[in-house]
């Protein structure tokens, strides 16, 4: 509740606004923001003027010129005749790819570590502890270089590739595996999969309702697994496996065809996620320990078994403690992915903030793009995590 100060009528409008606590805070905020913007405008103006003084105008026209360089990992069509803008898109996608994969992997490993840290088994507990202490205390850049060095030096060259069933090959140039080529009938399988997802979404709510009303419990998870995976799978085979595979083959220097996961990606992904997982492990441990033990005892007393106690009582409450610090770990992971340049993974920093910047000499312009992109990606991650955080908040009844 805001307490509005009673204002004598003779005072003028400005002092009235100033004396009101709410409008005063609005005024202060407006002034602060204007000052910040004015300061930024001043700096930018100054930069532009100074760049012009040495004859370098401020311009983004270079974005539409051919980039003239090649990039080894591109998720979209790209070659040296593509524009710098497209090179930037390639970089953005590469950053997003490693960030998403990293976040998923880090979360899985992190949760596992957190649980292992709480294990009553002394050896397991100590092992997890040692892992966390070692990993947390070595800079992530060293992890990246180490993993990359290991892959490059320990794995064989393409001619001596480790073959897995003659279709997948592990080399120090990456892991080459068959690439699926979809036939039209495969669309049916995809459609079924989507239908199954929709059905499950409905069924989950239905099951919840039934349980709330009658106490009857459906094994939602297993039914879900059966529908979402099982049904499309059965149809996949009934339709005669409408997928063919493009198997990689050794041609000259390298494997040609198929798909490749490059060592730079693997190194970055492993280093980032194993590093972040150590922090997540501690957060998870703290979260679980933060749930008052009486809750567990109460749950046992009600005859609820260990597994369900964990999933229904402990985890939902632990998540409330875990999610906020988890968000900053995700942000760290995403930002640390910019260390990619150290091993030549072509992310945002290496493309638009690296080669494009260097070849065109547009430092200012490119750095502004890079900073903006990281800011936007951070904000998106924060938004998603905040939404999730609200979603799992205690619903007071």
């Amino acid at each position, binding site marked *: 509740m805001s307490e509005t100060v009673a204002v004598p009528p003779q005072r003028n409008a400005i002092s009235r606004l100033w004396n009101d606590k709410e409008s005063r805070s609005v005024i202060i905020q407006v002034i602060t923001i204007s000052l910040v913007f004015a300061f930024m405008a001043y700096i930018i103006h100054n930069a532009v003027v100074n760049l012009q003084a040495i004859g370098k105008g401020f311009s983004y026209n270079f974005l539409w010129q051919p980039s003239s360089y090649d990039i080894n990992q591109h998720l979209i069509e790209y070659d040296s005749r593509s524009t710098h803008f497209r090179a930037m898109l390639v970089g953005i996608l590469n950053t997003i790819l490693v960030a998403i994969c990293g976040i998923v992997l880090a979360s899985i490993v992190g949760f596992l570590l957190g649980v292992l840290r709480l294990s009553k088994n002394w050896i397991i507990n100590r092992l997890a502890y040692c892992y966390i202490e070692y990993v947390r205390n070595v800079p992530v850049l060293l992890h990246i270089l180490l993993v990359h060095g290991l892959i490059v030096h320990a794995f064989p060259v393409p001619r001596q590739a480790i073959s897995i069933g003659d279709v997948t090959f592990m080399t120090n140039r990456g892991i080459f595996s068959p690439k699926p080529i979809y036939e039209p009938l495969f669309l049916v399988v995809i459609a079924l999969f989507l239908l199954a997802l929709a059905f499950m979404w409905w069924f989950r709510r239905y099951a919840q309702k039934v349980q709330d009303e009658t106490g009857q419990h459906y094994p939602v998870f297993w039914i879900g697994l059966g529908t979402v995976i099982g049904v499309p799978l059965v149809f996949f085979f009934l339709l005669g496996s409408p997928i063919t595979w493009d198997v990689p083959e050794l041609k000259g220097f390298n494997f040609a065809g198929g798909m490749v996961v490059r060592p730079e990606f693997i190194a970055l992904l492993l280093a980032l996620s194993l590093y972040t997982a150590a922090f997540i492990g501690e957060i998870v441990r703290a979260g679980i320990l933060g749930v008052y033990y009486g809750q567990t005892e109460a749950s046992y007393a009600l005859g609820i078994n260990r597994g369900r106690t964990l999933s229904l009582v402990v985890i939902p409450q632990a998540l409330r403690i875990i999610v906020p610090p988890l968000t900053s770990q995700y942000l760290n992971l995403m930002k640390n992915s910019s260390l990619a340049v150290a091993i030549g993974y072509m992310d945002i*920093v290496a493309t638009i903030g690296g080669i494009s910047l260097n070849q065109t000499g547009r430092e*200012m312009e490119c750095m502004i793009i890079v900073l903006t992109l990281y800011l936007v990606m951070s904000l998106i991650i924060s938004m998603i995590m905040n939404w999730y955080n609200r979603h799992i908040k205690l619903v007071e009844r």
Partner: protein
Amino acid sequence: MLKSLKIAVITIALSIIGLSANAATLDDVQARGELNCVVTTGLAGFAAPDENGRWDGFDVDFCRAVAAAVLGDGEKVKFVPSTGKTRFTLLNSGEGDILFRNTTETMSRDADLKLTFLPINYYDGQGFLIRKAMGISSASELNGASVCIQTGTTTELNLADYFRANGMSYEPVNIETNEEGIANYSGNRCDVYTTDASGLASTRAALDDPSAHTILPEIISKEPLGGAVRHGDDQWADIGKWVVNAIISAEELGVSSANVGELCAAAGDNPSINRLCGTEGDAGSWIGLDSKWAVRAIEQVGNYGEIFERHIGPNTPLALERGLNAQWTDGGILYAAPIR
């Protein structure tokens, strides 16, 4: 990240403080008593610290020659190591006064990146280094190869052009420094290492077994390497330009570190030598220096031929021939403008 952070910081600093482009670099250097020279992070033969931590090499000697002319002492140089990516920012932001870093003169660097190039001191071209065991004898057989390239160089652009023009594909493996390049190449992450042929000779000499590697016959580009300064200070550019010319002319005129003292003690019969020695005319004053500017440079680092022999010539691990870099009088294209 650190490097790009550095670039960002430098850029912002540069923008906020504003670059006093017209300030006399000569005065700054003389007041400081030290020349800041941008070089490589380490390329044996061209610029690398020796076992005592003293910088040494072909490019390094040009830095020292300028310091000798300007400050009287070729040891008064602070070397600023740079990658292909950071070199121009270091120069443009004022962290370096002059750059000698295996740098190719191109139109965009000159006109768009705002550099003034000094005379070419090494005519080079891009080549390919490969293991002999691969059994490859020509660059036209490189289809599908993984190629290590240093980012921020003309190398990566030439490479893209070459493979495209010849309808071949390749996997670029991007690296920042020559050291990383050696690590990736010897770890077999790439089949081929490509850069300037002189750099390849240096790289090969640094490998465990140099004789197991060969440089393919194709040279796919022109790489005229030279020093550079930033736009805006013509006097400083002239100093750099004429020190390089003096070093090259000295060889042509037969003036070396061994005989410069004797030849320049007093005016002799050869007016060209006299002008170089400062015993005739006052060339030094045209660039804001005294009359012994060139003598000091030659005395302390030697003439072009001496520098070449000492660091990259046939008797060094790099074993480079003079080739194009012979004097024009010896069948090369080294041709310094006359000092007069």
